[in-house]
């Protein structure tokens, strides 16, 4: 019966497509978002109240603490993004950037996208997980190309081609896993059920398991945006409408991460080792560190604030993967930190994408150099944006600080046992510093200084005859920036997210700690 959680998304998608009245579409969208959120919370409640922390029918449908956690994150970010979309798209509608037909397409694809993401977390079968993750690419590609302009089309094309091609490898890995299960555990229609594979992990063939994990990791890491398979991510995240960017960055990456974690749990339980450490652990440590390094470099040099946020997603996913990779080598502190970081990253990143969405609406530019004096033009947005930047870069008292410190402490514990791991500690700390410097430098330039109207005009004169950076609008598109807040409803959502990350940063309910510790035992 778990599939019933998909009904609100599908029904909202269909209703939004069929309706022709803007107000009604928006109302249905909001009602749909509430229903999706309530269903997810209800399922999570069922999981928590169950004595085994699992629900399901011993067949296709299954949920445990890990899937409930991811499902709730999708529901929170997805429904807040749906509410934020109303103000955001209404502004664009009034400016004649989009019409009702585009709104219908947007809201129906958006809810289909949310539904597909929820689908990932309610099944036991690893092929269905694959089908759902591929479904998320299909549903979100049209959202990335929403504005139908050249860069948006290019980004959407890269997104669908690279993600679909990458994920083909994951399907190949799934088939190898099916072969392994059928040969070693006996032929069964439940050969690819995660519960069965996890319970009998020790009986599976280690050679096939290694091959499976490599293929699965490369495939899903493409979708999760890990370096070097990340090339689609900054393009798609920067070109999509801001609420979609928030959802792509905040929760879509989690779906691929979830799939990797399911296989990582099997590998850990099967004790597949290489060079004295877990096979999957080593792969995750290498790719996590690489993602951190590359993303930190790009955050410093990038001139487009949405691209900076996109690279920051790569960095945070790298941190999470690194946390899980280091995780079970000494205690579970790093795993606990990585799990908590998934929630913190989703909330903080969507908060920043929402506030940057308001900036984009006002200034019509994604170029850091084109925005000055945000503090005087949009004081509330500027404060929220700056606080978001501080939160995302790991400053206390925000929750990202707690999770990043937990991962770091876990890493130091491991390094005390094996000094070679001090290299990862060094990379981790170095990247944190670089990212903080790069991020605050860009955000500081935008927030402080004098109002950018005159600066933009000056730049236009200087740049005559030159090709401008792609994030700049054309001269005709440049708006007259007048002081004043816009999309106030959107700002309220940003404040809700800010309060959440602040609360999570200063106090964690004991029940939540126990819940995360329960998940950590899987690895």
């Amino acid at each position, binding site marked *: 019966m778990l599939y019933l959680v998909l009904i609100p998304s599908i029904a909202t998608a269909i209703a939004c497509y069929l309706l022709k009245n803007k107000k009604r579409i928006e109302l249905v969208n909001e009602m749909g978002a509430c229903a999706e959120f309530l269903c997810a919370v209800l399922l999570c409640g069922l999981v928590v109240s169950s004595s085994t922390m699992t629900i399901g029918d011993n067949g296709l449908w299954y949920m445990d603490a890990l899937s409930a956690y991811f499902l709730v994150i999708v529901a929170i970010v997805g429904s807040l993004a749906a509410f934020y979309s109303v103000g955001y798209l209404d502004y664009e509608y009034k400016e004649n950037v989009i019409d009702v037909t585009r709104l219908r397409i947007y809201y129906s694809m958006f809810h289909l996208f949310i539904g597909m993401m929820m689908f990932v977390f309610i099944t036991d079968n690893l092929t269905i997980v694959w089908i759902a993750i591929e479904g998320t690419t299909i549903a979100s590609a049209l959202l990335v190309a929403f504005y139908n302009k050249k860069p948006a089309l290019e980004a959407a094309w890269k997104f669908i081609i690279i993600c679909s091609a990458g994920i*083909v490898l994951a399907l190949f890995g799934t088939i190898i896993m099916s072969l392994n299960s059928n040969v070693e555990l006996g032929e069964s229609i439940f050969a690819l059920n995660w519960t069965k594979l996890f319970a009998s992990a020790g009986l599976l063939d280690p050679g096939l398991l290694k091959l499976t994990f490599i293929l699965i990791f490369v495939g899903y890491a493409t979708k999760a945006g890990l370096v070097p398979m990340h090339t689609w991510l900054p393009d798609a995240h920067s070109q999509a409408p801001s609420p979609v960017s928030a959802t792509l960055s905040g929760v879509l990456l989690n779906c691929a991460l979830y799939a990797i974690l399911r296989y990582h749990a099997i590998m850990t339980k099967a004790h597949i080792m290489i060079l004295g450490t877990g096979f999957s652990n080593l792969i995750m440590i290498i790719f996590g560190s690489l993602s951190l390094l590359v993303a930190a470099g*790009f955050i410093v040099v990038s001139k487009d604030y949405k691209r900076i946020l996109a690279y920051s997603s790569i960095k945070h996913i790298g941190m999470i993967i690194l946390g899980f990779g280091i995780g079970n080598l000494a205690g579970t502190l790093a795993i606990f930190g990585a799990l908590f970081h998934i929630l913190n990253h989703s909330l903080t990143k969507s908060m920043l994408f929402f506030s940057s969405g308001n900036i984009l609406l006002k200034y019509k530019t994604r170029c850091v150099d084109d925005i000055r004096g945000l503090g005087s033009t949009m004081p509330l947005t500027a404060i929220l944006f700056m606080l978001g930047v501080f939160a995302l870069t790991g400053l206390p008292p925000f929750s990202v600080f707690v999770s990043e410190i937990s991962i770091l402490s876990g890493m130091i514990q491991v390094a005390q046992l094996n000094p070679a791991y001090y290299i990862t500690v060094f990379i981790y700390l170095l990247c944190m510093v670089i990212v903080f410097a790069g991020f605050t430098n860009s955000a500081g330039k935008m927030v402080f200084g004098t109002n950018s109207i005159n600066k933009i005009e000056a730049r236009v004169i200087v740049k005559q005859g030159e090709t401008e950076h792609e994030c700049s609008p054309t001269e005709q598109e440049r708006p007259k920036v007048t002081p004043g807040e816009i999309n106030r409803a959107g700002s309220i959502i940003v404040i809700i997210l800010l309060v959440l990350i602040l609360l999570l940063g200063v106090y964690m309910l004991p029940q939540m700690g126990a819940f995360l510790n329960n998940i950590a035992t899987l690895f």
Partner: protein
Amino acid sequence: MATIPVEILFTILIIFFTILVHINNLARKQLLAFIIHTVVMGILTFYIGMQFSDPLKVLDFILIAIITVSVKGIMIPVIILKAFSKLKYEEEPKAFAISITRTVFTSVFLVILAYAIIWPVLAALPGGSLTPVTTVLLPASFGVVLMGFYMLATGKKIYTQIIALLVMENGIYFASIATTYGLSFLLEIGILFDTIAAVGIMAVFLFVIQRNLKTVQTKQMEELID
């Protein structure tokens, strides 16, 4: 179970048609080569299915063969042809010339690489647990996936990339039947449904991109880089 030469024959046929899809630089010819590629897969599924004694399993494989060939061999080519018919900027064959020698050599190398990766892992399994169908065809199917990747990476036209993706999907389908256990019927249908949806969306993009950007070349879409 079957004797080895039949599997080798199928392997050679499928690799040959994969190369054929790659080296055709005209859209319609490429699509035709892909249809033949899919039909060969269908015949292979039928052949493997006939080896089983369990009538349910035979029926399962025959049904999968029929559905796959009708979806990938008929339905998807029709969707792509419809998108082609709206193209105003038809390709110039010279601009997209492909070096046949290089393609053949690289493809053969990729197949050898696939065998080098998969074969040792299969060989380490306990004797008798795998049939010759699996040991011969599973590495070849990985070879087809790698060749699809190669085609995707070197494709200069947006619809070549769609066909490359379909070749990779065929490689996966090939792998699924090569394991002889297959994925269950429902899951195969789910994967096919994903493929149809992906191709449908890509066909929409093909149309929008050529209308808005007035090109079908991928090199026109290299603006977003850091």
